[in-house]
């Protein structure tokens, strides 16, 4: 099962501008990852889960619906988040990539991951 998720991430990471991706549980446990950059995947997983938790809190405080996806742009690159069932798919990309195109690839990967981890 985890090999299948890794295969999906590997496929996603072949998209232009994508630097790596991870699937993280709600509590920050790393389920699978495929990073092309030299970063500690456990740290990225914990950071991603913490950010998503903050996003959820923020949306609930302003009376919004549940979080489904998010995006952060920093000068070093982008972080994209997509809720995949109870887990979160986190994708690291270069700055300045086509977010619309990246989103399509992420959505495709998200659907497959949700199906595999169901």
């Amino acid at each position: 099962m985890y090999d299948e998720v890794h295969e999906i991430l590997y496929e996603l990471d072949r998209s232009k501008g994508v630097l790596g991706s991870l699937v993280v549980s709600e509590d920050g446990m790393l389920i699978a990852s495929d990073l092309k950059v030299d970063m500690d995947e456990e740290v990225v997983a914990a950071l991603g889960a913490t950010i998503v938790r903050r996003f959820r809190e923020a949306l609930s405080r302003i009376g919004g619906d549940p979080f489904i996806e998010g995006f952060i742009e920093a000068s070093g690159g982008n972080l994209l988040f997509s809720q995949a069932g109870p887990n979160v798919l986190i994708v690291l990309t270069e700055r300045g990539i086509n977010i619309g195109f990246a989103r399509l690839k992420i959505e495709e990967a998200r659907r497959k991951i949700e199906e595999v981890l169901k």
Partner: protein
Amino acid sequence: MKQDVYAPLDRDFTGDVQMVFKRTLDKLTEEKGILGCLLVDCEGLVVSESLGSGRKDPEEVAALAGMLTNFLEHWFGEMDGSPFDQCVLSTDSSSMAIRKVGCLYLVVFLKGSGLSGYMANIVTISEAVATIAMMLQRTCG
């Protein structure tokens, strides 16, 4: 002909900064797909707002945006020192986008599922950001 509301300010403009901020936010809120917006400082205080009556509480949104941006600035600074520029949080019916503009943050509420509402309004939001940035540069140097 559509009025170019985000046109660069007159070089000799001496009007009230608050008035320009308010005018820019009001025009942004009039755009299709945009539910409201506000300008917040780094301490989470409202600088100017255009959320419309009966909608979200500006003070609460500003405090929330201040908290979220402080958190993100801290984390990104710790990770690789790269400053945070913007973030977008989406639900299946709306989004909240936060863009850094100098020492302030522009918070925009958008209609639409996921990031689609934001994607559809990137240009409009960027134009408003440019106007605010120009005004800040002119007044703060």
